[in-house]
């Protein structure tokens, strides 16, 4: 419990689903009764011990939690400054943090008697996690994925199919995550009775941003205890990559009221945060607007039309960001920076070479920022970075970026 309830950063959202001016419930009337029901059911489950008992059991025995907090010794020596810890959520079953949240939502869906699960996915990690948990519980699973992402994340598409999910390539718009989310919402509006929409990040209408954050907060809770055990004190700086912002919110949330802990979110800078918008840095290069059920910072033109972002990382390729991050940005509780494709690729390679860990391209963005700031910080400065996904899914993209031909050899 926060000590100063009034000035706590952990009270959001309010009863309208707002974090300050951000968030809310900007959905069509058809969906409104559904999200109100979801909110009611979630509020109930949240305080129901049997719900959390089921979660904890699966987190331990199915996902493999707690994930280790690992001291990256060679990386620390190489950078020659702050002491770097990696929160190893890439070791989770299915290879990323996404499953933390999926478990919570699917257990809720089962309690609500829903038999069909839909999801949107960018990198495919959320789709794989959803397909996995649906297979485990024998639920029908349909995953919407931008046609462009189907192409660049082919291994995950095959994985989802092996797990029995139907993958629907989305061709509207430019065929990325934003368009997949539109089509998932269109599915939900059509199949209101039996379908549960399992959103993969801290976005969407209330209660999703709060609910997904609460499920992902296990990352920060564990990191806190593990850092206390390892160092006897809290970390000085937290760093996480942001697409929609769920792994970041999960790490940040339990530390929001620890005023001495510096919090840094890393957005995808693509080819550089410039006027051409070849990036996905909503906070660095966007302005407030309304999309996908909430008010938040968005990449948009002067007319309020949403722009397609760009990033080498499919999981960060989203023109918005969770509303709670917009609020943390405006209140200055957290800082947000952008990292380019080129910087992320360098960090990706360094992590492979120095630590024997192939990271996903998403947390490679976070790592690139660690590489920027760690050398200037003293040796007793503790950095905790969320290594939220493994890079198996990205090796083809990286090979292409590095001009390596991975064609069949004999």
């Amino acid at each position, binding site marked *: 419990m926060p000590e100063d309830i009034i000035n706590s950063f952990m009270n959001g959202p309010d009863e*309208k689903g707002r974090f300050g001016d951000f968030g*809310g*419930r*900007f*959905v*069509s*009337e*058809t*969906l*409104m*009764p*559904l999200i109100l029901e979801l909110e009611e059911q979630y509020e109930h489950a949240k305080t129901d011990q049997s719900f959390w008992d089921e979660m904890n059991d699966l987190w331990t025995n199915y996902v493999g939690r707690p994930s280790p907090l690992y001291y990256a010794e060679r990386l620390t020596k190489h950078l020659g400054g702050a002491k770097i810890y990696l929160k190893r959520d890439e070791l989770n079953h299915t290879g990323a943090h996404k499953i933390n949240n999926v478990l919570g939502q699917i257990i809720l869906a089962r309690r609500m008697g829903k038999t069909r699960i839909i999801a949107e996915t960018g990198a495919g990690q959320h789709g794989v996690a959803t397909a996995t948990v649906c297979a485990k519980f024998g639920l029908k699973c349909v995953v919407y994925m931008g046609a462009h992402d189907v192409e660049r994340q082919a291994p995950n598409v095959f994985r989802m199919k092996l797990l029995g999910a139907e993958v629907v390539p989305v061709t*509207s*718009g430019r065929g990325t995550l*934003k368009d997949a989310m*539109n089509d998932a*919402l*269109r599915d939900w*509006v*059509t*199949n*209101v009775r039996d379908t549960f929409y399992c959103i993969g990040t801290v976005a969407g209408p209330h209660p999703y941003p709060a609910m997904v954050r609460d499920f992902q907060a296990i990352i920060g809770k564990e990191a806190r205890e593990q850092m206390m055990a390892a160092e006897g004190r809290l970390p000085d700086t937290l760093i996480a990559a942001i697409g929609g912002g769920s792994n970041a919110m999960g790490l940040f949330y339990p530390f929001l009221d620890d005023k001495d802990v510096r919090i840094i979110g890393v957005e995808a800078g693509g080819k550089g945060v410039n006027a051409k918008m070849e990036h996905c840095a909503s906070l660095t290069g966007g302005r407030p*607007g*309304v*999309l*996908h*059920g909430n*008010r938040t910072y*968005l990449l*948009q033109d*002067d*007319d*309020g*039309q*949403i722009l397609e972002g760009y990033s080498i990382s499919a999981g960060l390729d989203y023109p918005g960001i969770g509303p709670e991050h917009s609020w943390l940005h405006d209140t200055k509780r957290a800082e947000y920076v952008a990292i380019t494709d080129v910087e992320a690729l360098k960090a990706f390679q360094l992590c492979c070479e120095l630590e024997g860990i192939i990271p996903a391209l998403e947390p490679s963005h976070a790592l690139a920022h660690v590489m920027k700031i760690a050398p200037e910080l003293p040796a007793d400065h503790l950095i905790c970075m969320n290594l939220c996904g493994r890079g198996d899914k990205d090796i083809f993209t990286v090979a292409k970026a590095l001009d390596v031909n991975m064609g069949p050899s004999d």
Partner: protein
Amino acid sequence: MTRIDAKFAELRKAGRKAFVTYVMAGDPDYERSLEVVRGLPGAGVDIIELGLPFTDPMADGGTIQLAGQRALEAGQTLARTLELAHAFREQDDTTPIVLMGYYNPIYSRGVERFLAEAKEAGIDGLIVVDLPPEEDDELCIPAQKAGLNFIRLATPTTDDKRLPKVLTNTSGFVYYVSITGITGSAAAEAGDVGPEVARIKAATDLPVIVGFGIRTPEAAERIASVADGAVVGSAIVDRIGKGEPTEKVLEFVAGLAEGAHRG
């Protein structure tokens, strides 16, 4: 009294149902779209819903998504859409125009500025898909204050408990979405729609208009016969999308109007 209220008073007197059409502003381009809109009243259209293009129309099916993309590619914006309404108004001062779209372009323009400009352009009402009653402070209340109708959608998921909330702050008419789904989906049966319309009418004095999935004069007639009117969108937008000449599009609209007016 807005042009919408006046139109319904006139229809009631004549004992006729309302025929409402949706077309996307700027589809396939500004000139063609203005030509179609100008021809609608002559083809028997009582109320014009003018689509405001948006990149992410989450309640629309393929037909209207593509229409929005064509309009945006041809340079349509919120400002150009109001300009189009204004150009229509110069020749027709009675046919109501309802602007239908999503909130972000309006929010981006600034609510106060938008309302003043919309009023000036001769817009009579607004349907903003992603603004449920829970977000009434955003635009609904300011719009009513500015003298514009705010027309709400009621849907099959709007149960009796929720219906009063949807009807409060609704004005002009109520738009009953006859199916759970997106625009351009399969139509509902008049037999299913009738009782739903009756349920809504028991709770409000406002006219109840039914839309989504109506594609033929016969369907327009059947639906209009159990409501205060019928809306056709995708079936008309489809023809515009196929590049049919304006006269052919308006001929099709006239057939639909006859159907609806028989209802």
